[in-house]
């Protein structure tokens, strides 16, 4: 609960600071808010504190909260160093980010479906605004509007699903629903089936899984690049945590019935994401499709639904978040410099900024799942989850996707190391440099010492 209060308070403070000409205190306030929130979240480790029977801060929730707080921390710093002087709405953006984090905390810790709905709405509304941040840019407006319309539609499905389930079971509580499903062996009742499938559609839309992914490329491309990075990491990870939570706590007796549906969605998502990414010229759009494909890999772990699922989803989220943050940060910096996000802006990057090119290469290797990066171990973890239950065929398909993805992940890396381009040095602020280096090192370190994270869940 403290976490929510702190994040909201910090958001309000940041917003008012700009009214009273306090631009300079916005960053310290918001960063200390993040750290305090992280601290209070970690205090509740192993306690399983329940609030109002609607939220429970279990280890799963805390771990995902911390991952999202870290991503937000990176976003805030980058945003500060890239837009402090240029963006008039600097303080508002930061406060919206803090508000969205409140939504994230609710989404990863709910035990009642009403809270799930609230959390998703808090996060989504913030993201709708953030997507349209560049209000004079047509693409940004398009992104915002598209996201809002499609998102509202998906929320409708979600709400309808919740209503159906309430009608069938008489409760919003996940534990009650699970009890009802287990007791009556009622997974095939029409109300339950419709309810679960509608809920699934709503959540799969949020994680951008095929065939509910059509909004992703346009929204990701139109939104300012850093915001895209935020949506692709925090937005996706939180929605995934919600998906895992709702199926694990609420529908676990029904999961076997829906397993095949998840398998089909996972396979479609991976293939659509990866194959479409092959044809992209814009790195940003490529990363958008790649983020779709990663939802597919995570769905495999979810589908397996065994004792390794939580660990696999968390590990994958961490690896994916770190690598995506790096990738979007580099793309954002290059886009600010050159105004383009084509692969060609990477030409000669290894000369003009060795740090950016090496960190970007690490990010791409991690996303492609090549050892010794965190991404490799994440994939390994997911594949283990699937194979331990005998899902070998889906693993083979996932692996085919893995090597399709190498092709497009390598394009910018090849451009930065092997093609000649503008060799004029790119100057970065020291904190940005340190941040990039730290995330890249973390990616390698988690890949080298995967055991260090496996105690988390």
């Amino acid at each position, binding site marked *: 609960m403290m976490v929510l209060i702190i994040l909201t308070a910090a958001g309000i403070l940041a917003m008012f600071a700009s009214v009273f000409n306090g631009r300079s205190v916005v960053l310290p306030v918001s960063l200390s808010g993040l750290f305090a929130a992280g601290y209070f979240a970690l205090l509740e480790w192993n306690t399983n504190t329940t609030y109002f029977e609607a939220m429970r801060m279990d280890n799963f929730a805390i771990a995902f909260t911390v991952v999202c707080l870290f991503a937000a921390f990176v976003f805030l710093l980058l945003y500060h160093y890239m837009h402090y002087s240029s963006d008039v709405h600097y303080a508002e953006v930061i406060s919206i980010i803090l508000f969205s984090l409140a939504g994230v905390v609710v989404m990863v810790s709910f035990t009642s479906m009403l809270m799930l709905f609230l959390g998703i709405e808090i996060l989504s509304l913030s993201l709708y605004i953030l997507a349209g941040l560049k209000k004079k840019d047509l693409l940004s407006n398009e992104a915002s509007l598209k996201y809002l319309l499609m998102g509202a539609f998906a929320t409708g499905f979600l709400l309808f699903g919740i209503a159906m389930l309430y009608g069938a079971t008489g409760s919003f509580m996940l534990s009650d629903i699970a009890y009802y499903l287990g007791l009556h062996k009622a997974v095939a009742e029409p109300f339950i089936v419709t309810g679960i499938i509608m809920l699934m559609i709503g959540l799969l839309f949020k994680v951008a899984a095929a065939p509910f992914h059509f909004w992703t490329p346009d929204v990701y491309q139109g939104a300012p690049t850093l915001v895209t990075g935020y949506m692709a990491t925090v937005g996706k990870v939180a929605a995934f945590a919600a998906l895992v939570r709702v199926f694990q706590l609420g529908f676990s007796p029904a999961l076997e019935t829906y397993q095949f549906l998840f398998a089909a969605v996972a396979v479609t998502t991976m293939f659509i994401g990866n194959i479409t990414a092959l044809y992209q010229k814009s790195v940003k759009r490529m990363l958008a499709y790649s983020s779709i494909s990663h939802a597919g890999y995570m769905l495999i772990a979810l589908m397996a639904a065994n004792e390794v699922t939580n660990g696999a989803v968390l590990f994958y989220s961490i690896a994916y978040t770190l690598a995506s943050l790096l990738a979007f940060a580099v793309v954002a910096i290059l886009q600010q410099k050159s105004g383009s996000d084509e692969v060609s802006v990477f030409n000669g990057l290894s000369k003009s900024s060795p740090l950016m090119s090496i960190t970007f290469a690490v990010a791409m290797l991690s996303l492609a799942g090549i050892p010794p990066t965190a991404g490799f171990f994440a994939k390994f973890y997911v594949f*283990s989850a699937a194979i*331990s239950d005998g899902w070998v065929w889906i693993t083979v398909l996932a692996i085919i996707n893995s090597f399709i993805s*190498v092709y497009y992940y390598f394009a910018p890396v090849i451009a930065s190391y092997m093609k000649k381009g503008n060799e004029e040095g790119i100057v970065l602020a020291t904190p940005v440099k340190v941040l990039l280096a730290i995330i890249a090192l973390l990616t390698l370190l988690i890949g080298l010492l995967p055991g260090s994270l*496996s105690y988390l869940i």
Partner: protein
Amino acid sequence: MIAITLLLLPVIFAIILLLAPAASSRRIALIGSIISFSITAFAYSQYLQEDFTKLNFDVSWASAFGIRFNIGMDGISLILVLLTALLYPVIIASTSRTVISNPKAFYSLMMLMQLGLMGVFMAKDAFLFYVFYELTLIPVYFICAVWGGDRSIPITLKFFIYTLAGSLLMLIAIIYLYFKTPGSHTFDIQAFYQLTLTPVEQGWIFWAFFLAFAVKIPIFPFHSWQPDTYTVSPMAGTMLLAGLMLKMGIYGLIRFILPIVPLGLEDWVDFAMVLCIIGIVYASLIAWQQQDLKRLIAYSSIAHVGLIAAGVLAANTAGLQGAIIQMFNHGINVVALFFMIDIIENRYGTRWMDELGGIAGQMKKLGVLFMIVMLGSIGLPLTNGFVGEFLLLMGMYVFNPWAAAFAGLTLILGAVYMFRLYRNVFLGEVKDHKMTTSDVAGWEGFILIPLCAIVIVIGIFPSILLNVSEQPVQQLLQFMNDHKSGVSGL
């Protein structure tokens, strides 16, 4: 201690290289590789004294998954580690003439590559094996793509994706085996040896491993990445690929396929053997037609490793012993040949057969040295190649006389294309009189003369290697036969 030192040294030197000035990069890398070599030589002496304590190292790595950082050397590993340590100073020294842009990065990647290779040959944990197996791919990819010639970008990307595709199949097989191990699962390779798998499972796992290794070796028809990649890569990259990296595939065949899936092997060995033999004949015939010397050696390499793989698949003492010693010999010979072609290219500005001729008259020493290595490569008695090929063919004869007969064509065809090369390039008329050439210079001699000495010494005293690998080979075969008949042991 020795084992972990061999892995840490390349890392330490990679870091030193990044910090030290670029001008001294080559020297630092050379010192690092020579230290590695002396430690390996020490490991060899320890092994001969049957003191194995220092050759193993085992700590928990990710205990929640049963992954251990478990490395160690038996005779088979030792020979390959020795080969790596021996060739590394040679490969680094061979770059002396070429001007390398950004030498820090180049030599650091070389060091990382050494880490990966040593790790693969020493890993006793399947997960660790996989990580090192993949780890080698990144440095060699960058070495070949960044410092490579024309069209290196698409060709090396093809190489990367091709080999990655193969090894990912292996990853599935490894995870599958992991979940078959009893209790809290483990990736220990020895534990994999104890598994009893149905013949159907064994068939699938055989193919998962075989495809991974067949791409790396490469076995026909998975070889299409190889000639192009060898041709466009910088000479050091080609040497790494041909001399060392493809040995990982054969090593994998020995370590994983034979003992873990003997029944899968039994079901599919005929098919795999036919692929190997087609590769041997096919690559030899293509090598016969090549004009580009580097490409010629690339194709001859496919033929040679095809024979080695066939010897492993025959799964008997002679075949395995031959494969192990021939892996060593092939590494030495192919690196020496590539190095001499590099010398020719440097002196004459071309490596096309048409444009060369009469080199033996102008460069007498090179003519003699090339002759020695060439004879080793085609397997003349008293050279290293003879021992290896003789054992390999003997192993195949035990397996099936017809297989040996067809594979034996490699001896004839090998002589044909190598003599054609020698006649056209070293004998005959001098094509370009304007070229001022000097014979093998001092440092080049320092590289070539030891390599030629090894060719002859192993030809005369093959037991220095065969004795080392004999006991583990016997153990492996014994175990494989026990496993086949359902008795677990070792």
